[in-house]
């Protein structure tokens, strides 16, 4: 079966890849491009562990086709830090122990970044409803929500 050639932008850099039409974007990121930071928890859009930001919106890559990346801009967890300096969200997740096993962490960080980009000063409830698509079984969400609120405060210069 002839593979499709896709040109896209990942973490700000031009990327080309070949993929089967039925391959999901998640399979492409992990198996073709070795970006294993996005995780597969359910392949049905119910756990959020595979979240990336595509054209400014946080999406589940298990529910998108690799070929749909053509001409789009994708930001994965691997692109969140600027070289050596971690993004404030990454720092606050570490600072406030907002992760234990860490499997859901990439999805949470990417989703939280999309939130703060759109709503710099969210309430606790707004954070909880925005992150409702990201399942975590270790933390009970408490420290994750606090870390997002703390990072938001820092990014607002408070």
């Amino acid at each position, binding site marked *: 079966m002839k593979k499709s050639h896709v040109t896209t932008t990942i973490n700000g850099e031009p990327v080309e890849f070949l993929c089967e039409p039925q391959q999901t974007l998640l399979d492409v990121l*992990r*198996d073709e491009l070795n*970006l*294993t*930071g*996005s*995780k*597969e*928890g*359910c*392949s*049905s859009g*119910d*756990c959020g*562990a595979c979240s990336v930001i595509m054209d400014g919106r946080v999406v589940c890559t298990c529910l998108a086709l690799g070929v749909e990346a053509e001409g789009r801009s994708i930001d*994965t*967890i*691997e692109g*969140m*830090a600027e070289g050596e300096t*971690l993004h404030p969200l*990454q720092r606050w*997740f*570490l*600072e*406030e*122990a907002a*992760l*234990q*096993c*860490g*499997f*859901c*962490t*990439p999805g949470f*960080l990417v989703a939280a970044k999309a939130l703060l980009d759109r709503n710099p000063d969210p309430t*606790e*409830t707004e*954070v*909880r*409803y925005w*992150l*409702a*698509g*990201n*399942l*975590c*079984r*270790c*933390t*009970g*969400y*408490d*420290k*994750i*929500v*606090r870390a997002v609120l703390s990072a938001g405060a820092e990014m607002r210069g408070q």
Partner: protein
Amino acid sequence: MDGQTRDFKWIGKRTVRPDGVDKVTGRANFGADFSLPGMLVGKVLRSPHAHARILSIDTGKARVLPGVKAVITAADLPDIPSEEAHFGEDPTDFRYVSHNVMARGKALYDGHVVAAVAATSEAIAEAALGLIEVEYDILPHVLDVEDAMKPDAPLVIEDLITQGITPTPKKPSNIAKRIQYDLGDIAAGFKKADVVIKRRFTTKPVHQGYIEPHAVVASTSEDGQSLVWCSSQGHFMVRASCAKLLGLDVSQLRVMPAEIGGGFGGKVTVYQEPLAVLMSRKTGRPVKMVMSREEVFRGTGPTSGSVMTVKIGATKKGKITAAEATLAFQAGAYPGSPVGLGCMTAFAPYDLENVKTVGYDVVVNRPKATAYRAPGAPLAAFAAESVLDELAKALNIAPLELREKNAAREGTQAPYGPRFGVIGYVATLQALRDHPHYMAPLGPNQGRGIASGFWMNFGGQSSAVINVNEDGTVVVTLGHPDIGGSRASMALMAAEVLGIDITKVRAIIGDTHSIGLSDITGGSKVTFASGMAVVKAANDVTGQLRARAAMIWEVDADGVVWEDGHAVASSTNVGEFEPLSLAQIAAMAAKTGGPISGHASINAKGAGPGFGTHICDVEVDRETGRVTVVRYTAIQDAGRAIHPSYVEGQLQGGAAQGIGWALNEEYVYGDDGRLQNPGFLDYRMPVASDLPMIDTVIVEVPNPNHPFGVRGVGEVPIVPPLAAVANAIEDAIGVRMTDLPMSPPRILAALEDKL
């Protein structure tokens, strides 16, 4: 090294976990993140029937499909004898483990593996599964524990004879085991009671719900050496299980611990790992097997569903005179439910004279039950703590006061026999009484419930190695997989004993070839047992450092002590010497005898039991039956919190799992015995917007048997929530819910019955 009293430099600090940066940048490698050149994809074929005899399996067409490199069935695995398996787990039997990994003769549940293939791509592997023709003789099935206990019930395992009954029964049954614990005289106890409450409870199986599906990569070289990368709660357990199931020496298997994406007890056994190793040996190529979420729900162990009866009697003044429980747990397709642990823990927080607990371990046509965080205790506590609450109301005594009147203390005899040493249960009750939550006002349709929980915690085998590098930095290698942050705690303990800055300490998890045997991560034992091993290894290092300093100073080693990270002359008559830092001594290591490395391999004893008391406020929508948790506080005795953030994380995570268990999580089976909700959409675990912040209070009543007073904390937090939520619902709408989950339809029905 008396670590009990003096204030600490590192213990108790909220440092960043050593594995943290890799996890927040996506670099951390979990089970499915490994791949090797020439790797094949492995897939399993699962029986679609609740109960069926396997008449024949025709793999002919599958074998010849281009790209298929191996097809295996039970015939390819040795038919191993019964043998007890011990990895710090409830004892199971290797023969049953083998049958669960690959069905032999009978497929006992919907999702039971009957064959496996390895192919050059996932698509080809999927196609190959479609070509395997299995002839089944479909048998009547049984799912419910009470139905399975009936004499005429279909037999899941034809030759299963109940243990623990004398004389030994002749007729096989689905009851694998009967267990009983007694204390005092139960009948006399109930006679002395002014008020007796008896209630029947039922619960459904629930899954651990880890977000990472099981994943393994196995690669075998021509000399028969297999390398295995997998996420599990015990890579030594994986090694031992694969060796036993495949008839190999353990040294032929090197198991590398990937980061583990949650386990909660569900990854203390093997599923695909032996199949991946076997297929890599047959093909000479690496084989990767990753479960889909549907497979995790259909094929891996939830904890037991149950039917329970609890009866408690007390005097008017609130002294419990007798407590009795009968617990029947589903074990799934093979014996081994945690009913024994349920019996031991049901009444453990209380000082009781007369106790009788009877447990039945019952096999049914469901996936084999596996441990789930304090296995058996949340169920038993749901029943016992609910009846206690009802008793308090009947006696017109506050639920907290009733617990205070009967609280277990040092010297109290546990329902399962031995007397408690130093324990902190009363301290948790006091902390609850002092907490603002206890007296906070409640709104309309709101209610408040409290409940307590216990877990004996566990020690077991643990190994640690501390290598001092030439620049004075240190690497601590451990043998237990780290899920909840144990690397952070180990680094803190090593830094404390060695007296060096935490930034100089790295903590890693060694693979099975590079560290001594260590039991599974579970039983809340890692910080306790590994901590002991790390402290012993660190003391081994400081001993060597003192000897090296003595050599440098040309004095007798006894004249040198270790203080604040330096070798110091014990007194002036030993000599006037500038203290030597660890780094200074390390720099001279070559001259003074070679690299400095501390070792410890122990069987940690003296695990301190953990107690917790939770308080929960709920609001009930009377028109739809929906329950919302509006406030939650978890209080627990940790002995000593090495890393407070991760102790809080255990309390919060356990509470959230308990709340999900109480309100919406359940396995839904059709009449055909097939699982209807194998996915996160309809297996409803709490999401972020379902929960409030979960406040925590860490009580510290040090465990005298641990250098820093540590008690295990991982499992107690899931024990109280089921009853805390049930008691809060009763307080809100005056309805005693005795069946889990307390989902909206059941609450609405109960409200209507009450009208």
